C-alpha cells in the first residue's frame, strides 16, 4: 500500500437501500407533505384545483371523443370507459412526473440534513396518489350512476376483479422504477424534465385510454402491445368490466419486467447517490 490511501464510496445494493428507506420511513410523511404544499402554491384557486383537475379534462374529452367523434368503447358508456383508462394512465404519468422531479425539488432538504435519497421518489409521489384516490372516488360515483340509470351491472363481481387491482399496482411500480433512473438524470440534464412532458403526451395517445385496443387496425395491434402501459390499461379494464381482450401472459411478463426493473433501478440509484455525494 506504500502508505497511500484511497477513499472510495461503498455502493449499497438494492436490498440495503430499501432497508434504509424503511428505517427512515417516518420522513416519508414529511416529504409527502412538502410535495403537496408545493403543488398548488401561489395559485389563485389553490386547493380547488385538486377537484377541478380530475373532473374537467375527463368531461371535456368524453364530450369530444365520445359524443362528437363517436369513438368506440367496447359497449360501455364512453365516460365510464374513459374514466377507467384515465385512472390508470394518470396514476402512472403523475407518479412518474413527481418521482422524476423528486431529487431536484428537494435539493434544499438534501443539502441540509442527511436522509437516504431513495426516500425522495417514494415520498414525492404523494400528490399523485392523492390524485388517484380522488379519481377512484369519481369513478365509483360514475359507476353507481350508470348502474342505476341503465339497470345493468357494469362492474364484474367475481375474483377476476383482482386483476384490475394488480394492474393499478403494476402501473404505480413501473412509474417508481423509471423514476429511479429519470430522477438521477433529471438532476443534471434539463432534457429529462423537458422531454418527459413531451414523451408522456405522445405516450398517452399511443396507450388505449381514449379508444379501446380492439379498435386499432389488426396489423398495428401487435406492435402496440410492445407498450407496457397498453397491456396494463387493457388488463385494468378487463378486470373491472370484463370487456376487451385479456393478455394474461403479456401482463405477467410485464409484471416480472417491472419487478426486475425496480431492482436494477434501486441499484443504479444507490450507486449514483454514492457517486454524487462523493463529488460534493
Amino acid at each position, binding site marked *: 500500500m506504500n502508505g497511500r490511501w484511497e477513499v472510495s464510496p461503498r455502493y449499497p445494493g438494492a436490498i440495503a437501500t430499501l432497508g434504509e428507506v424503511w428505517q427512515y420511513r417516518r420522513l416519508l410523511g414529511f416529504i409527502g407533505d412538502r410535495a403537496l404544499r408545493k403543488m398548488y402554491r401561489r395559485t389563485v384557486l389553490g386547493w380547488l384545483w385538486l377537484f377541478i383537475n380530475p373532473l*374537467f379534462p375527463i368531461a*371535456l374529452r368524453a364530450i369530444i371523443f365520445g359524443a362528437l367523434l363517436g369513438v368506440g368503447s367496447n359497449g360501455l358508456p364512453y365516460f365510464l370507459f374513459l374514466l377507467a383508462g384515465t385512472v390508470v394512465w394518470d396514476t402512472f404519468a403523475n407518479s412518474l412526473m413527481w418521482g422524476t422531479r423528486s431529487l431536484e425539488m428537494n435539493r434544499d432538504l438534501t443539502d441540509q440534513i442527511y436522509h437516504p435519497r431513495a426516500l425522495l421518489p417514494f415520498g414525492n409521489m404523494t400528490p399523485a396518489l392523492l390524485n388517484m384516490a380522488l379519481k377512484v372516488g369519481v369513478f365509483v360515483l360514475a359507476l353507481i350512476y350508470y348502474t342505476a340509470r341503465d339497470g345493468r351491472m357494469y362492474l364484474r363481481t367475481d375474483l377476476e376483479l383482482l386483476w384490475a387491482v394488480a394492474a393499478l399496482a403494476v402501473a404505480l411500480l413501473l412509474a417508481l422504477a423509471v423514476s429511479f433512473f429519470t430522477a438521477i438524470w433529471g438532476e443534471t440534464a434539463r*432534457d429529462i424534465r423537458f422531454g418527459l412532458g*413531451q414523451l408522456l403526451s*405522445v405516450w398517452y*395517445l399511443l396507450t388505449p385510454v*381514449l*379508444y379501446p385496443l380492439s*379498435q386499432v387496425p389488426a396489423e*398495428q395491434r401487435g406492435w402496440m402491445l410492445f407498450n407496457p402501459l397498453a397491456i396494463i390499461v387493457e388488463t385494468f379494464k378487463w378486470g373491472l368490466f370484463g370487456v376487451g381482450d385479456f393478455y394474461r401472459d403479456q401482463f405477467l411478463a410485464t409484471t416480472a419486467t417491472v419487478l426486475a426493473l425496480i431492482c436494477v433501478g434501486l441499484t443504479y440509484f444507490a450507486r449514483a447517490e454514492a457517486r454524487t455525494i462523493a463529488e460534493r
Partner: protein
Amino acid sequence: MWTIEADADQGFGPRTREVWRYRRILWFFSLKSLQTLYSKTVLGPAWILIRTLVPLGVGSFVFGSIMQVPSGGVPYFVFFLAGQVPWNCFDGPLIRGSRGIEMNRQLLTKLYVPRIILPLASMTAGVAEPIIIALVLLGSLVYYRVNDGVWYVQPEPRMLAAVASVVVVLALAFSLTLWTSVWQARARDARFVLRYVVGFWLFLTPVIYPLSAVPADIRWLAQLNPLTPPIETFKWALLPGMQQSWPWFLYSVGVTVAAFLGGAWYFTRSESLTMDKL
C-alpha cells in the same frame, strides 16, 4: 416646488414609435429567447424537430387510423397538418410570449426597454414550429402527388385567405399575451393554468376534427370560439371540399381587435405596478 411629469410619453402613437426605435433590442431579445429555449439541454436545437415531428406522426395515426376521424375526402395526415399549422401559430407564441417578462426579470431591473418588446420577442421563438409543420405539409403534398397522382392543394386565389388566417391567429395570440404576460410576471403558476387552458382549447377548436363533425344545431357555439373561424378558413383555403364563413371570420377579427385594445390598455396600466413587484 417641482413637478415631475413621468408619463409624458404615454399614448398609443408615442408608444408604437418607441417600439420602432428599440427595434434592434427587439431583434436581440428574439434571438436570445430562441437560444435560451434549449440551452442546458443535451440535444439542443434538435428538440425543436423532435417535439414537432413526433406528435405529428403519432397524432395522425391515432386520430386518423384508430379513431377514424372524418377528414372531408383528403388523407387524414394532410387534413391534420393543415389544422396544426394555424393552431401552432397560436399555441406556441401564446405560451412563449406569456413568459416574456418573467424570464427577463433580471435584465429588466437593470436597464430600460419598452416592456412590450419582451412578450413580442418571446413570441418569435414560437414561430419555428408552425414553419416546420408547414414544410412537412408541403412534403406530404409532394408525397401524395407521387403516390396517388393528386395535388390536394390547388394554387388558387383563395389561398390568400390562409395568409389572412395566420395573421388573425398570430394577432390573437399577441393580444392575449398582453394579458397573460402580466399575470405570469405576478404569479408564476399562471403558467400552469395557461397550459391547462390551452390544452382544452385545442380540443374545443376544430383542429383534429372538421367543424362539420359538430352537430349543426350547436355549431354556432363552436364558432363563438374566436380560433374556430380562422382555422376553418385556413383549411378551406388549402384543401378541397371544406367550408368556411366570412361573417364568422369577421367576428374573429372583431374579437382580436377588442382583445388587443383591452390588452394594450391593461398592459400599459399594469406595467409600472408589475415592474415594482419583480
